[in-house]
């Protein structure tokens, strides 16, 4: 079976690079987008199995992207995990209501994030042993 493809949308290129290394090391194929408009077109083209989405982005925030993806036939139903520096208290519920599978506040613990990815992809969840954060 081919590697699952994950789209990371984040305008912080350092984090983007770091997360890409982390996810690739865990056996995923990774594509990137750094703004809202590009994010939607990459999603349509690449049809990723999962999207890791930042909220504050140039060209439209994460909520706009979630709305757009939900109206495009090819991208409806792609699981989304929000990874944002914005406060959880105001955004977690809003994101989950908008259809996100999970919400993580930056910096997110690697193991927890990977567990959420596996769960969203329907993969066997490996219990995490170390919590860094």
């Amino acid at each position, binding site marked *: 079976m081919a590697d699952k493809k994950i789209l990371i949308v984040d305008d*912080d290129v350092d984090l983007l690079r770091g997360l890409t290394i982390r996810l690739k090391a865990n056996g995923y194929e990774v594509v990137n987008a750094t703004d809202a408009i590009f994010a939607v077109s990459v999603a349509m083209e690449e049809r990723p199995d999962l999207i890791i989405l930042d909220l504050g982005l140039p060209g439209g925030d994460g909520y706009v992207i979630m709305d757009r993806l939900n109206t495009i036939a090819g991208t409806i139903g792609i699981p989304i995990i929000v990874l944002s520096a914005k406060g959880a*208290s105001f955004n977690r519920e809003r994101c989950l209501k908008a259809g996100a599978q999970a919400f993580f506040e930056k910096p997110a613990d690697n193991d927890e994030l990977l567990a959420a990815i596996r769960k969203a992809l329907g993969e066997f969840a490996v219990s995490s042993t170390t919590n860094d954060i």
Partner: protein
Amino acid sequence: MDNEYYTILLIEDDPTYVEFVRGALSESPGMFFELEHADQLRSGLERLAAGEIDLVLLDLGLPDSQGLDTLRKLRSQAARVPVVVLTCLDDETTAIEASQRGAQDYLDKGHIDANQLVRSLHYAIRQSCANEALRVSEACFRDMIYNNADGILIVNPQGIVRHINPAAQSLFGARAEQLLDQPFGFPIVGNEATEVELVSSGRDPVTAEMRAAEMMWKGQPVHVVSLRDVTEHKRLLEEIEQHRRQELQAKDQFISHVSHELRSPLAAIYEFVTILRDGLAGEVPDQQRGHLGTILRNVTQLKTMIDDLLDISRAQTGKLTVKPRYLPVTEPISESLESCGAAASAKGIELSAEIGDDLPSAYADGQRVQQIVTNLVNNAVKFTPEKGNITVSAGIDQNDPDFLCVSVSDTGCGISDEDRERIFEQMFQVQYNGDAGRKGLGLGLYICKELVTRHGGRIWAESELHHGSTFFFTLPVFSLAKSVGPILTEDNLIGRTLALITVDIASTDDRSLGKPEEAALEEVWDILDRCIIRAMDVVLPRMPGRKTGETFHVVACVDAGGTESLVQRIRRQLADSDALKTAGLAATVSVTMMDVPFLPNDAPAEEIAKDIVSKIEELVMTPV
């Protein structure tokens, strides 16, 4: 009056009598009278107008005036000067009339000797002085009320206004005649300042602070009501408060913004440090791995500080919320111990928990309790030397069985008494020279206190310097009675019956529910809360459901048909919920009708309520 030196004006046309009076006055012991004389009323009045007359000795029969008319004429010119009337008429009626018209005394020329005359003048002057003093004093008090900047009214026991000063008239925006003998219109509360709103057409309403005191007035008990215009004062206070809120809001926005901006680079640092440490960028020698661990530990510390900053800002703007529910406290405690375990074992500290058997559950927010315990344990780890012990205990609060008490005790350096009083203050930091490491922001315990207080509990510390500290906090015990009690009133129960509506939420694919579903579950509670009528129904706090689901309960006081419409409303709203659909959850609604226990008429309401609560408890707490 002190020198007892008086000027007397004698108005008398009989020279013999003038001489008699002069003689009588000159012989009076201890008093000096200066006698001035006029033989007609007109010349007498002229002299009187010139002033400095202490008393008038007035003959009623004068060439230019006769009888009581003489007194009337004199009084009309000089209202206050004491007058002693002289007459030849031995007439009781005239005497009484003269005193009614303002004469101090009445002397019969034919029957009076020098001594009596002097005595009479003396008393007339004295009495007049006393009257004058009283009049001045009364006028002074009247002026005090009349000129008072506060509105003052006298209100009789029937609530009718009997007296009102100009300030009160302008407060009411009405004239005295519109207000006098009318109902006051506001309830009078003694000994306590209350605020009243005075509305009058053509101007903005005036807010007045009202105080009332009881007193006797014209022989009846009345209220003296004073009204002070506080409109401007209140407006200023509101302005200040609004300003304060705006400032806090701005500060909150600033802190949110800053923490947001801090998180992004922190996330990148975290990511790359872990990439190095985990060897994703090549083999790492042990020593370097150790250094990376140090970086990581500091990243964690920074993240905690950012979280604390946000919490503190929310606490100040009232946005720091706790969402209490049925909570076995072992859950957050074990999670805290797990997350603190690594730091403790790094120092060789033994971390253990002692939790009483059969401990009732708390009514608390699990995440917040975990935050409190984690904070306390982290502090303990920081201040406890290597190979020490930290114990987290939980039991019933010995002072109040309605509370649980959780404690974190360590074998650390302890806290001095004076520090102990201040450790829960914002940004207070204990001066410590040991190896406790970096101090942090000094917000942790303050946040703990805020969170515990929002649960209705309290937090405190006991300590012995150099031997260790114990931090305690209390949380309310979960009690159905407290939730259901308020609706079990006689009014609600008469002619109605109780329905227990159970809403089971389960995932459509039988998976167990976790954090991702939490938002949807909270939405369920909100939906139920929207459907009920607060005075008669209650949504019970969330309680543990089946392993793969969650159960909600509504207790409703309903009459015939009421249950059906309530259940339909709940079903419809749950079916419309996008949150449930997105989370892949389905709701099943069921109803259990409950008999309201028929107890003897004189059974106290609490007994009935107790009986109902235990029935609900039986139905709700039975494991499914």
